[in-house]
């Protein structure tokens, strides 16, 4: 179901015209109201009046995460503080948190783009939405909340955690739509199975999963275990939260709500804009944001764009699911390694489940990569040689995919910490 047919199926020329007008208005507004941007634009000798066309954006400066931290908490505010009605921040685990301050207009846009997202999973007024994203400063919980409210679905704001209760609610209230992180959905499936729940018999039919990187293979796992269609959704606190982009029911790349969030792909080293189809760093400009608008924000997410029309009828540009992070990327003996590649390999080894952890250490000046893989009933053999053979098999597959040697270590099931939110996939002992 298409939530906003007028906008989501708008022809590309009309869409570009909308984007151009919004960009011009945005640049004028931030030059006028945000000291940080006025200095930045002046330093780049970029005059707001010189922005006449969409391609003129390429002459404008980028904004990066460090600048968001430097201006914490209110340095990027473009609205009168009295106009701000809600604040969200990132977790701030890697430094000062990133602030997103919403005006009533911003919340209206957020509700709209989240309604579009939920509708991509065919969510309607008839659905029961179990929202297991955390409520609070994290944008996941309230973002889904606003979208489900806009649609008028029956919303269960259960928030994250308390797995036993999640399962009971799912069963008792006949949840049809589940929203949470992909790793938590697998955890729910695992616990449910242990408690004898048969997901095939539940009305649950679709899951909208995001807030952490996952893979096509993990999708297959989730779909097989929970008997749902698993839809990848994408967003980030800096831009608005969830609602930036989502797959439609065809599950072929994520439609970007580009009438609000203008995407570009750049070479992370040079900042040069790359053509469609080329992998690079995803950059967003918040065309309509009032509270804390951002100009050419570098997300550090790696993906590529595709403007080919989608069979669903939406005309928006699509992005491939996130392929990696410019900063999560591990550099092992000079080779770029993305955790998503490791996961992809593991899911192609029979008997292996997607529970793994990557440990990086420096021994004798050399980077050593260890991939810990949880033992499963299918994998377990009573004989050492079979297990060692399995380790060698996985090592060989990893080596050919990563182009760098990784030692594989089998660990006991559930030996790898499962958080109820984001799974901790990487332990880098080289730092600090």
């Amino acid at each position, binding site marked *: 179901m298409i939530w906003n047919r007028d906008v989501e199926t708008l022809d590309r020329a009309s869409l570009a015209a909308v984007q151009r007008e919004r960009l011009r208005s945005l640049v004028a507004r931030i030059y006028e109201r945000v000291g940080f941007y006025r200095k930045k634009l002046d330093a780049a000798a970029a005059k707001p009046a010189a922005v006449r066309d969409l391609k003129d954006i390429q002459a404008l400066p980028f904004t990066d995460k460090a600048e968001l931290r430097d201006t914490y908490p209110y340095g990027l505010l473009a609205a009168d503080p009295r106009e701000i009605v809600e604040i969200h921040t990132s977790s701030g685990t890697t430094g000062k948190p990133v602030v997103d301050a919403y005006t009533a207009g911003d919340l209206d846009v957020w509700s709209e783009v989240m309604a579009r997202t939920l509708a991509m999973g065919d969510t309607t007024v008839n659905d029961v939405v179990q929202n297991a994203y955390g409520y609070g400063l994290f944008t996941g919980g309230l973002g889904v909340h606003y979208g489900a409210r806009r649609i008028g679905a029956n919303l269960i704001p259960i928030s994250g955690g308390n797995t036993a209760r999640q399962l009971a609610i799912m069963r008792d209230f006949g949840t049809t739509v589940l929203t949470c992180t992909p790793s938590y959905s697998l955890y729910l499936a695992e616990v449910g199975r242990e408690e004898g729940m048969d997901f095939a018999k539940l009305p649950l039919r679709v899951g909208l999963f995001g807030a952490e990187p996952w893979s096509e293979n993990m999708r297959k796992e989730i779909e097989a275990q929970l008997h749902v269609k698993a839809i990848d959704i994408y967003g980030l606190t800096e831009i608005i939260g969830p609602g930036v982009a989502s797959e439609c029911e065809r599950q072929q790349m994520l439609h970007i709500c580009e009438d609000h969030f203008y995407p570009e792909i750049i070479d992370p080293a040079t900042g040069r804009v790359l053509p469609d189809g080329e992998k690079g760093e995803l950059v967003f400009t918040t065309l309509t944001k009032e509270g804390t608008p951002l100009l050419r924000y570098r997300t550090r997410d790696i993906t590529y764009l595709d403007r080919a029309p989608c069979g669903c009828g939406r005309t928006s540009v699509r992005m491939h699911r996130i392929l990696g992070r410019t900063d999560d990327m591990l550099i092992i003996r000079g080779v770029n390694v993305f955790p998503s590649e490791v996961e992809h390999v593991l899911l192609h080894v029979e008997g292996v489940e997607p529970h793994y952890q990557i440990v990086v250490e420096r021994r004798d000046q050399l980077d050593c990569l260890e991939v810990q893989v949880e*033992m499963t009933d299918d994998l*377990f*053999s009573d004989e050492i040689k079979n297990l*060692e053979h399995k380790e060698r098999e996985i090592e060989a597959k990893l080596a050919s995919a990563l182009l760098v040697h990784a030692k594989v270590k089998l660990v*006991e*099931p559930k030996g790898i910490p499962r958080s109820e939110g984001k799974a901790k996939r990487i332990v880098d002992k080289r730092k600090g």
Partner: protein
Amino acid sequence: MQIQQISVFLENKPGRLASVAEVLRDNKINIRALTIADTSDFGILRMIVNKPEQAHEVLKRAGFTVKQNVVVGVEIDDREGVLYDVMHLCDQRGLNVEYTYSFVEQTSKKAVLFLRFEDPQKAIEVLGASGYRLLTDEEVRKL
């Protein structure tokens, strides 16, 4: 003639064997014989217990990866040279032994050798025909 054996996957780190032993103690399961095969990363604990099905279930419930498989139990005299006799026979008859471990009976001058064969059925025939007494699963449970 095939005897149920329990195998448990253990990470090579302190306290893992104790946790297995704790689960068995709590469920009043007695161990007849055990052996551990290990590498630098992990080990496989193999055990003959008095209640193998129950042991399998409680260990699995405690989160361990467990497998139940079969070994052959051969009663031998507790004196020098007997292990050679058995191994020599296996060698001659082309029986591939994956691993073995043993224990000494308290009540008699006998010992029991547990052997894991590639082909347990053939091993049972060969050893039986050569005059060795093979323990039954029921006997082992009552040991």
